[in-house]
């Protein structure tokens, strides 16, 4: 090994704790980069492969009922490849030892109808497929089976088209169509209260009068076909059969949610590493600058002996690259491990049959190259400055730094401060850029910690607004099909039901100018007690007798203002297309809907006073009995009880949230520690003579520590509020990135979040201080004063 390389190794070893702190910051950036990108690639790859191997459809459409003969017309649509027709129904289940209402989608198994392209195949996890002729056998979705412990052989009762039927579970399965399983209208998965079941087509068709017909169709497309053309054709064909409008795969619910999740992951994969690499560049700059200023004379000597500028520069760059390499290697290892863990977490949260962990070599290369480039850029300036110094000047000791009277002194306030405090402030004033960068580094750490808190806080707030302020019912009963208003009497008559309000829901396409959106129009009662539409200040607003109120997000997407006319195409019944004035917006974090007074909506539909279901306020004491009564009402297809769904959601989310909170807190702590520890070490190195002199003059160790640590304490205290501002900004950016028509992430940062971020920063700086305290005890007064600076 060359002598210069030995020098490098030994110096690296001597500064190992600082190097390690920097390597940790770089490693964290690399780890989070690799974790997010590999998880992202894994999810993409797994989803792609799963979709392909199980022939996930590309266009989906629900309809009322069409005869199988229609398939012929659909086959003729240019661009259609395979077709799968199905019978799907929404049913209520009765599960032993579970009183609450359970609803489920009951699907006919693919391959059991004519024109079957075997689309949306299931992945059988356990048990067997349904044997032909077995009318009471079902396969249940794995998550649902797990939630209720439904093993093959288990039995459950389903109310199928008003008739109670006992079904036997023969298998557990997953489906590419239900990677994310949520009940209609829900936003969170609740595997205890909503399930997916498959059964043979024949008995299902018989029960719903679908023999020789279907009420759902899925298509795949030929290569180079135009998706929108196919959808338009399909809608045209299915219109007479009550088609509610076909959707493309990208709008398919499960796929949508998954895509949103991937989008969030992508944001994380870009924002976080940028912060880490930025901080790492700063740290390397600070540490290398100091190292170089300590080695001023050595550099001069090397140059005196004929080492060229580039050789000297390369020497220090090698040192930096070694530190970076440690970080990169550790980061890659940790990143792969965390990426695996995260992918598995996603496999759990979403229903994937397997997870293919994908680690693209280019991700690793990108992480390594980025770290190296950032590190070199961060150190180049100080290296360049060092080699530029003529050797003769390099060997002269550095000029004592020129201190100026500081601002406080110019203001005549110095008497307020003791001498040590003046030393602290002067030192900060002398190196304002370094102090500023230190503050920024600590602030960024603070902001990263806040982001994790923000996600949890946002969900809490979202739920509070949606289910605490806006939706006030205890239960929602959904009818099998629209029924007259008077059907509410039977609900009111149930013992324990305190208040009932009917509502009407119809699918519709809303269009303003060239922008359109498919959603549902909710007809609600005027002066509703159980559904409050809210303005931005969360005050209740009333829907005028005529006109439609839109979710604020939807109005923005359509770029429609109150008073303008909205084109509404109703997607059921007579499918009228009408113009309705948009009269206002309602603040909503979940979904993108339209609201009208129920009477006005029914007038549009040219139907009588029909409702699709009811919101119920109940006396908790009678809850069990109410469930039983509702289950026994043939008209009721399902009962939604959001509050328990939310609890269930929190249970499933707890792990994920904990994982992310844990990671970002840890990473924030790493940055804080890296910045604070390195700043302290450098301050110690720069000022050891000064501090040792003070010790000689009789200062106590605590007093000397006060000068050194006081500076960092001051910078930390300045950094925390700035970090709060950064954290707010970062959360704001993330929230903006996460916004979609499915949900908007509110920016609600409660006091807890601010406090815990500050706490982590303070603890990190206390740990650094404790480590520096040890170094202070080694401060050798005699030796320090003897050596030549």
């Amino acid at each position, binding site marked *: 090994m*060359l*002598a*210069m390389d*030995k*020098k490098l190794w*030994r*110096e690296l070893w*001597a500064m190992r704790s600082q190097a390690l702190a920097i390597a940790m910051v770089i490693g964290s950036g690399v780890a989070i980069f690799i974790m997010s990108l590999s998880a992202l690639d894994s999810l993409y790859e797994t989803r792609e492969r799963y979709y392909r191997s199980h022939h996930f459809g590309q266009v989906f459409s629900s309809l009322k009922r069409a005869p199988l003969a229609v398939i012929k017309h659909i086959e003729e649509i240019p661009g259609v490849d395979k077709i799968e027709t199905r019978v799907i129904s929404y049913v209520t289940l009765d599960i032993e030892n579970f009183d609450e209402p359970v609803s489920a989608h009951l699907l006919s198994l693919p391959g059991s109808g004519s024109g079957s392209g075997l689309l949306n195949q299931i992945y059988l996890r356990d048990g067997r497929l349904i044997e032909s002729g077995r009318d009471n056998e079902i396969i249940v979705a794995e998550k649902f089976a797990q939630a209720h412990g439904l093993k093959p052989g288990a039995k459950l009762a389903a109310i199928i088209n008003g008739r109670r039927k006992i079904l036997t579970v023969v298998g557990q399965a997953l489906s590419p169509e239900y990677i994310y399983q949520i009940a209609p209208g829900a936003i969170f998965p609740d595997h205890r209260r909503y399930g997916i079941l498959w059964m043979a087509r024949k008995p299902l068709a018989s029960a719903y009068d679908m023999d020789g017909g279907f009420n759902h169709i899925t298509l795949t497309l030929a290569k180079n076909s135009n998706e929108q053309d196919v959808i338009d054709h399909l809608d045209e064909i299915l219109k007479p059969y009550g088609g509610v409008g076909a959707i493309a795969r990208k709008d398919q619910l499960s796929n949508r949610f998954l895509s949103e999740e991937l989008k969030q992951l992508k944001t994380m994969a870009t924002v976080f590493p940028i912060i880490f690499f930025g901080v790492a560049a700063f740290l390397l700059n600070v540490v290398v600058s100091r190292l170089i200023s300590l080695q001023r*004379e*050595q550099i*001069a*000597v*090397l*140059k*005196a*002996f*004929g*080492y*060229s*500028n580039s*050789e000297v520069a390369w020497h220090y760059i090698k040192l930096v690259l070694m530190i970076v390499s440690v970080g990169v290697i550790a980061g890659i290892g940790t990143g792969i491990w965390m990426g695996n863990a995260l992918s598995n977490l996603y496999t759990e949260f979403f229903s994937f049959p397997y997870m293919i962990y994908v680690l693209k070599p280019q991700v690793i290369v990108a992480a390594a190259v980025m770290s190296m480039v950032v590190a070199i850029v961060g150190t180049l300036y100080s290296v360049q400055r060092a080699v530029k110094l*003529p*050797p*003769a*000047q390099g*060997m002269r000791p550095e*000029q004592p730094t*020129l201190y100026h009277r500081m601002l406080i002194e110019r203001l005549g306030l110095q008497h307020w401060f003791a001498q040590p405090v003046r030393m602290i402030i002067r030192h900060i004033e002398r190196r304002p850029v370094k102090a500023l960068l230190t503050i920024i580094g600590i602030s960024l750490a603070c902001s990263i910690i806040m982001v994790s808190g923000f996600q949890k806080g946002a969900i809490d707030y979202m739920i509070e607004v949606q289910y605490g302020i806006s939706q006030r019912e205890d239960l929602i009963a959904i009818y099998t099909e629209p029924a007259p208003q008077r059907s509410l009497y039977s609900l009111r008559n149930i013992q324990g039901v305190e208040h009932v309000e009917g509502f009407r829901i119809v699918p519709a396409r809303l269009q303003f100018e060239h922008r359109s959106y498919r959603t549902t129009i909710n007809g609600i009662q005027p002066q509703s007690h159980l559904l409050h539409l809210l303005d931005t200040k969360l005050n209740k607003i009333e829907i005028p007798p005529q006109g439609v109120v839109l979710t604020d997000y939807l109005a923005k997407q359509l770029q429609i203002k109150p008073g303008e006319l909205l084109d509404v195409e109703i997607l059921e019944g007579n499918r009228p297309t009408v113009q309705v004035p948009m009269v206002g917006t309602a603040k909503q974090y979940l979904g993108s809907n339209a609201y009208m007074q129920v009477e006005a909506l029914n007038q549009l539909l040219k139907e009588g006073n029909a409702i699709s279901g009811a919101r119920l306020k109940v006396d908790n004491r009678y809850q069990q009995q109410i469930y039983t009564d509702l289950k026994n009402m043939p008209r009721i297809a399902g009962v939604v009880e959001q509050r328990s769904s939310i609890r269930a959601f929190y249970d499933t989310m707890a792990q994920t949230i904990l994982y992310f909170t844990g990671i970002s807190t840890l990473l924030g702590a790493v940055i804080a520690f890296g910045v604070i520890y390195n700043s302290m070490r450098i301050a110690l190195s720069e000022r050891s003579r000064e501090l040792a002199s003070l010790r000689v003059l009789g200062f106590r160790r605590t007093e000397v520590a006060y000068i050194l640590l006081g500076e960092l304490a001051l910078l930390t205290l300045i950094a925390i509020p700035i970090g709060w501002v950064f954290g707010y900004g970062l959360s704001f950016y993330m929230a903006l990135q996460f916004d979609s028509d499915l949900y908007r992430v509110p920016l609600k940062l409660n006091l807890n979040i601010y406090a815990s971020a500050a706490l982590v920063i303070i603890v990190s700086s206390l740990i650094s201080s404790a480590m520096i305290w040890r170094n202070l005890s080694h401060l050798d007064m005699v030796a320090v004063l003897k050596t*030549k600076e």
Partner: protein
Amino acid sequence: MLQDTPTDKNPTSNDAVFRVRGLTKSYQMGEVQVDALRGIDLDLHRGEFTVLLGASGSGKSTLLNILGGLDTPTTGSVYYREHDITHANEAELTEYRRDHVGFVFQFYNLIPSLTALENVAVVTEIAKSPMKPEEALALVGLQNRMHHFPAQLSGGEQQRIAIARAIAKKPEVLLCDEPTGALDSKTGIVVLEALQRINQELGTTTAVITHNAGIAQMANRVVHLADGLISRIYTNESLVSPDQLSW
């Protein structure tokens, strides 16, 4: 002792390794302008052992630094053999130092993280036809201390390592800036003996800066500097060996 003229414009022999003419150097030290050299004419001859004497601030270090290509003059010219080093660029100066010059500094300037042997190797690794680091250490009598780190060596030993490091590449000129300045007289003598030995055995042109007049007795030629000017130059007819010196 033979008195020379204070300037040295017409050298008797044409074997000058360095030819310095009209050299001035000013630099800014904080808010103060320092005129370190105010017009120097001087030749240094091949194989000669020259001592540059002068008080602190006389400009001797600046002169040595310019000779060694560590610094550039404000005006005037310096020739190393036929090469004009005043107009050499950074890269040429680096090559010049790398191939021709050896330095010894007052504070040794060893690299603390390298052993004695490695400190020498740092230079031999980039030199064209160096001696072995061990050989160089043997020349200064430190073959037994090769694997010690600077911090484990005495000041005299450290300075001898520095000499070994300077001569290991077999330079044509050896420039020493107060080589005994940080040493007591006994240790200083050992260091001077090493320098003399190198000068005699390898024929290296040697220039030693000192403010210690006693050392002048071992030099072929003595140049006195004061206030950035040469005040006098003389040649010693008989040389005193270092062990006879005292200060």
